[in-house]
Every structure is written in C-alpha cells, then in structure tokens.
C-alpha cells in the first residue's frame, strides 16, 4: 500500500468523494479535535463529570490530564454489563451527588460515551433529581465518535449547550457589544481585532474563556452581533441568531492577506460600522516582505492540526508567492474551503492532498524529505526534515493581519531554533 494511495492532486479533488478515504482509518495523528472535556470547561463556574467504561474515560481524559485540565474534571467508571442492564443510573447519580457535595461549581456537565449513546440511555430522570437535590444545572453531553460525520461533533455539541445559559436571559440589546465565539486560548485584549473594534466604538467585547463567571457570560445575550472564529461555534451562534435575534457572521481565523481583508469586510458589514484596517494591512505587508523573501526557496506542507483551515493557509502562502506542495487533511470540508480549493486548483494544481488518517501514510517520511517547512504537528510527523511550525490553538491566538505576521515570525523562529515534531507532540502536548 504505497503513499500514493493516500493522496490525490488538487487538480483531481473536485468533490468530497474524490478524497482518498481509507477502508480503515483512525491511525493518523489527527482526529480533528475531540477535546470535549476542555470545551465544556471553557464555560465559567462549570465542572465536567464523565461516566462510562474505563477505556472510554481514559481515551477522553488523557489529553485533558496532559494539559492540566484536572481540577474541574471527574470520571465515574461504569462496567459495560451495568450499562446494558441499566444498573448504572443509580450509581452515576450517587457519584455525582458526592461530587456536588464537594464542589461549589454551579454547572455540571455529565458526559457519556458511545455505549450510553447507542443504548439510548435516558438520563432525564437522573438529571431532574440531581438538579432538585443539588440546586445546580446539569447538562448532558456525549463523547461519541460513533457519530462522526453524522451529527455535530461532540465538542461542537458541547459548545452549543452553552446556549442553555443564555436563552432565558432578559435581553438589553447593547449596540456597542460584540461576542467573539470559538476561541480556546483567548484573543488578547490588546490584540488587533480588539483594537479595530474598539476604534469603531464597540466597547464591550466578550469571549467565553475570559468570562469570569456565569453572570458575565450571560451578558453575551446583550450583544449586537456575534463573530465566529472557529467552526465549532457556528451552531451556538446560529441558536443565538434564531432564538435571540443576535446576528452572526462566520469569520474564521485566516493567514492570507486577501482572506483577512475579506474577514474584515464581513465584520464591517456585520457590526454596521466602518473599520479602519487599511493602515494595518499596509504595515503588515511591509513587515512581511523580508520574511517572505527568506522563504521563497522553501517547499512547504500544511496540515489540518493548525488553528484554521489548511486550505486557507495553503492559499494564503501561495498568494504570498511561496511554494506549497502538500496538504494533509481529513475528508470533511467546510463550504468555504471548496472555494479555496477551486482557487488553488488554478494557482497551484500541483499540490497533493493526503488523507492524514490513511494507513498507507503511517511511517512514511521519505516521500516528504524535501519539505522544508511543515505547518501543523500532523504535517510535521511526515515531513521529518522540515522545520515544524505548529500554529496550534493551544498557542497564543492572533487575529487579522497580526496573525499573518505571527505565522511568518513563527516560521522563522522554527527555522532558527527548531523544536522537533516529537517534542511539539510529546512535550508541548500540541496534538489534537
């Protein structure tokens, strides 16, 4: 099974079915973000309890533990036999009561796994009794890879449940308030997007990771609009739009100058105020020029472990005059990515797209030995000679033209002082 089976040229990638899916997958370095625990814990004053067989708990908890998300997270081990017989409901109820007695948090996420999902276990009664006994909100979620591609991903579903804390809020619409949704590491308050929005008079900018408590989070109900920076927040934003009348715009993280300009144009339209970004764009391009010059002889690969779309980054780099040769992706494409792929088919049809999760790709590094720079820890696994630039969502977050510069500066740092891909994954915990 050669590496060619795992890839296809961009020229031939015209529809989802063309993607080189494998008969068996789940071996590659990227399963596209299943951090349900971390997603739930973005909500302030929340606790997460996962209940299920030990194997499922370990799978879901490992990375949360590796990154230190342990204080607000508990696990309740339930054997399969108990689940099949429905004997576990009382045990889970008892376990949660004990935890609630020890913890002050106001919201408790009860996360179950594939077995409860497939058994259709009804936790309604358990949740009602627990809420009555503890006075806390109990929200049910599922960590169920068995639903991949069929429903919202588990972490999207978890993020969407935050709506429960907004839907009953009295709205006092605030024309100067904007919600920024979909950040894990928050954007800095002195960053470009904040500066641009504040200059336009948008004074109250809220991100969920920066809400100190549920009261502050509930004020997101007052926003004039929501800006969505990551796809996982689209469902929450859509609920807020439909049920609360808060318009939303999907303006995902971008690295290419043209895409960034498009994002700001969309934001300007959504907030209904002119945004002063021309100077930022000018300065960024000026600062980028020498950084780009030094990269013109480099060959590049882009992986889907980056924060953002690998197709957008590939398009941005190509527009900057750099040579992208490979994209490591998965078989799920957002609608906006097809436009980027169409554009890349014209500007860089030679790019080869690989299925990052294909068994034929495992252990294959020789075909990528010529790659000089690999964005994403997944691309870095295959491009063993490349300087690996993670652009991980666990690093500092930037938005706008500063993001393009940050990407280029990170590239140069990786070339000057390389950190091995192994260390990015196993020491810095940047996988997923």
């Amino acid at each position, binding site marked *: 099974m050669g590496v060619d089976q795992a890839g296809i040229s961009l020229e031939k990638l015209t529809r989802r079915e063309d993607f080189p899916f494998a008969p068996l997958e789940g*071996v590659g370095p990227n399963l596209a973000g299943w951090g349900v625990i971390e997603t739930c814990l973005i909500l302030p004053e929340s606790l997460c309890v996962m209940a299920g067989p030990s194997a499922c708990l*370990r799978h879901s908890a490992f990375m949360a533990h590796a990154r230190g998300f342990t204080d607000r997270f508990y696990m309740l081990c339930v054997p*399969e036999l108990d689940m099949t017989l429905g004997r576990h409901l009382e045990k889970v109820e008892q376990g949660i009561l004990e935890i609630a007695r020890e913890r002050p948090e106001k919201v408790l996420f009860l996360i179950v796994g594939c077995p409860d999902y497939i058994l259709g276990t009804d936790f309604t009664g358990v949740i009602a009794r627990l809420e009555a006994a503890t006075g806390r909100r109990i929200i049910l979620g599922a960590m169920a890879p*068995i639903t991949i591609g*069929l429903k919202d991903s588990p972490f999207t579903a978890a993020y969407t449940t935050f709506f429960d804390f907004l839907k009953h809020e009295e709205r006092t619409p605030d024309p100067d308030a904007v919600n920024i949704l979909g950040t894990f590491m928050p954007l800095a308050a002195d960053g470009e997007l904040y500066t641009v929005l504040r200059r336009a008079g948008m004074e109250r900018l809220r991100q969920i990771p920066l809400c100190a408590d549920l009261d502050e989070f509930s004020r997101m109900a007052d926003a004039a609009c929501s800006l969505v920076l990551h796809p996982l927040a689209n469902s929450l934003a859509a609920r807020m739009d439909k049920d609360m009348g808060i318009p939303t715009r999907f303006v995902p993280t971008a690295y290419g100058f043209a895409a960034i300009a498009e994002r700001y144009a969309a934001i300007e339209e959504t907030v209904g105020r002119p945004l002063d970004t021309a100077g930022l764009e000018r300065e960024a391009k000026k600062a980028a020029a020498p950084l780009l010059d030094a990269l013109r002889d480099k060959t590049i690969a882009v992986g889907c472990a980056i924060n953002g779309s690998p197709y957008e980054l590939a398009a941005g780099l190509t527009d900057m005059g750099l040579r992208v040769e490979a994209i490591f992706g998965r078989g799920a494409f957002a609608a906006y990515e097809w436009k980027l792929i169409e554009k890349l088919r014209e500007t860089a049809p030679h790019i080869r797209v690989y299925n990052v999760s294909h068994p034929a790709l*495992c252990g294959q590094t020789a075909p990528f030995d010529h790659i000089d720079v690999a964005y994403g820890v997944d691309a870095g696994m295959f491009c063993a000679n490349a300087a690996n630039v993670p652009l991980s969502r666990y690093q500092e977050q930037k938005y706008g033209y500063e993001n393009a510069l940050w990407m280029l500066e990170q590239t140069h740092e990786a070339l000057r002082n390389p950190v091995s891909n192994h260390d990015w994954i196993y020491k810095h915990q940047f996988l997923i």
Partner: protein
Amino acid sequence: MLQETHAPLTARIAEDPTAMPGMQGVKRYHKLLPLATGYFGVSSALYAFDGLVVVYGPAGGAWHINIEDEPRWYRGPATVVGAGLLEMDVILGNDAKFIDNIARVATTLERRFVALAGTPISEIIGTDLKGFCRTLESKTSRPVFMVPTAGSEPYPEGASKAFLALARKFMLPPAKKRKNGVNVLGAIHLSTGKEEHVEPLLASLEEAGFPVVSVFSVPRPGQADPLQAIREAPEAEMNLVVCTSGLALAEQMHAAHGIPYVVGMPVGRSGRGDIPRLLRGQPPAPAQAPTGPPPCNRALVIGEPVLGYGLKRCLRLDFGVPEVDVVAVTPSEALFRTGPGCLGTLVERGPRDVCTDSERDIAAMMNDPAVDCVIADPCYAALLTGKTRFIPLPHIAMSARLNWDMPYEYAVDKGYEYLAGQFSGSPRP
C-alpha cells in the same frame, strides 16, 4: 428505619452516600487516569509482531491508543487501527463491509496476521468476532484470531488473552529442547516500559547460563520472522513470568508442553541471583542484611504486582527497609495460587499488601503518616498531601507517553543503582 427506606434515593444519599444497603459506590477518578484496559493490553502484547490489530469499535479507540498509550506508534507503520464503526453500522450490522475493509488493509499492508480486539461497543451489540475470523482467514489467507475484550477489564487480562491466542495460532510442537532455554512471559510495554528496561534482566539470564528463547511481547533480535521465537517457544525448558499477563500462558505451556515456570521480576542486586536459583529449583538465597541505616522505615510500592513484589524484595534485602507494603493496581490473586507447574516465586504477600486501583484508597494509603517513602508512577504524586519521599517509577499503563522517556530502571543491578540514586538524591520527609 422504615421511613428512611421510603425516602427518595437522592435525599438519603445526599445525607450519606453510603446509606444505600448493598450499593457499591461507583469508582471515581479525579487526579488519576483510569488504567489502560483490555484492548490496550491486546495492542501492547501484539504490537511488535508485524500484525494488524483491529480495535473493533468507533475510530476513537485505536486512535487514542496510538497517540497516547503506544509511543512506538510515532512514525511507525499502521499497526493498531480502528474499525471505525458509526451509528448506522451498529444499528444495521454492516458486518460484511467491515470484514471487507479489514481484509483489504491487512492484505495491502502485507501483515502477517490479523487480531480483532473487542471494545465496549462490540460487547454491547454482541458482534461475532469469532465468525469474523473465519471469514477473514479465507479472504486474506492469513492467520486471524480474536481476543475477547470489552472496555473495563484490566489490561493484563487483555494481554494474557492475546498471548494465549498467539500461542494457539503460532506455537509449534518442539522439534528439540534448548538446554536451560527460558521464555520470558508478560513483558508488555504497559507493564515493563521500553524494551531497554528489560534488557538487563535478559542479559543476566544469559550470563547465568539461561539462554533466552523468546520474550512475550517482542521479537528476538536477528530473526527475520518476528514470530519465529513465538513458534519456537516450546523448545524452552522453563518459563519466567515477569508480569501477571504472562501467568496464564505459563500455565497453558505447562499443561501443553510440560514446561515449568517461575514467577518474579528480579529487582536490585538481590534480584540478580534470585531468578537463576528459582530456575534451578532452589529457593532464593538468604541475603545478608545491609549495613547502615535504611533510607526509609516504611515504603509503599504502587504498580504492577510482580514488579511491585520485586521492588519490595529489593527494598528489604538491598536497602534494609524494614517495612514494605505493595499496592497491586491490577489483579494479583492468581499470583498467590501457585499452579502445578510453578517451581518458585518471588511474590510474597505481606499483611498490609492490597490489590486496588481506587484513587481514594490509594490516596489514603499514600498519606498514612507511617509511610515515609512511596515508589510509584509519577502521576500518583498528585495524591500526596504531605512531604513523603516520592520515588518515580513509571507504569506505562497509567502515564503512557507522559513518562515514556523518563530515565529509570528496575531490573537487577541497574534497578539497585536507580533506587540508590533516588534515595541519595531525593529529600527525606
């Protein structure tokens, strides 16, 4: 009392969680991870033999094993894969599709065998993995076997079943016997760590005149066929069980081939001489008490039981620690029921030794004021509330890749050097 039993469950439990008669509390983890379980053990046992291990469930199971519990995955060939069951596959069956998928991957990757490991989902929906095996064998012309795991049994059980399946499929009647030849059983990475940690044990066996015929679970160096040593394992005259996952295989090989076995992981200087003596049918030599004050008075060893008892022996005989208790975090009862093939064992139960993986119970024991030294996987340090001396000894089934590269040793003299270095370097409480 009658009134109490009619009160709502939640009200009674809100008052006292243990109030419900007969209600076993659910096991809870907070600072620790649950240990690796059955199909993790299967993967660990079979990883190095050039097969295809299919974790028969949603894709997440295999994926997590690869990126977290199986550090050998990094830049290696696809070995542990997930069937990738989705919701409709579970509801509709779709067995034929998965059999086809597995067959295609196994043949195009040219794997020597296929092993199907059960998961919570395959257990709940009652997938006939045995039937899959028969069909897959005819489609792939390769050995195919299943290992009946779910998602809650301890990992040594999964590894043990995998070893028995390997033996059934590949072991050959011995063409000859190798004088003093020994198989080392149970050396899976989840228990014993990197292969290099077991090397001192293997070297000491060879030096003592016991050539190593096979190691479960890695191929012998220099053999083109990674399964050659497995096939030839019955040529050994004795088996050495170094972790509980090897015990059932030892018993099976005694029943099938009359090969006796000893049990023990030799830790420290005293350990070096113990195993050869046991293999010769002699009891371990009484050791001389070391001079000088012991580095601690009461040590608590937490981890895999055979290694745990080896550590206990080393602490007492090499370092003179007067009291050592073992917390076996995986089932250990079988170690104390010596079968007819057992020539001897280094496993000796003490009055305070326990078998538990309960975070609550382990935390209580670790923080017993009488305990002044804990030897355990670094993850357990999070449970300490006082200034007890803590000596890290990774248990990969707990911390997996987090401590995979940490420098440590336990086997024979290297184990002594590591512990001595830790005692001299780490602060007394």
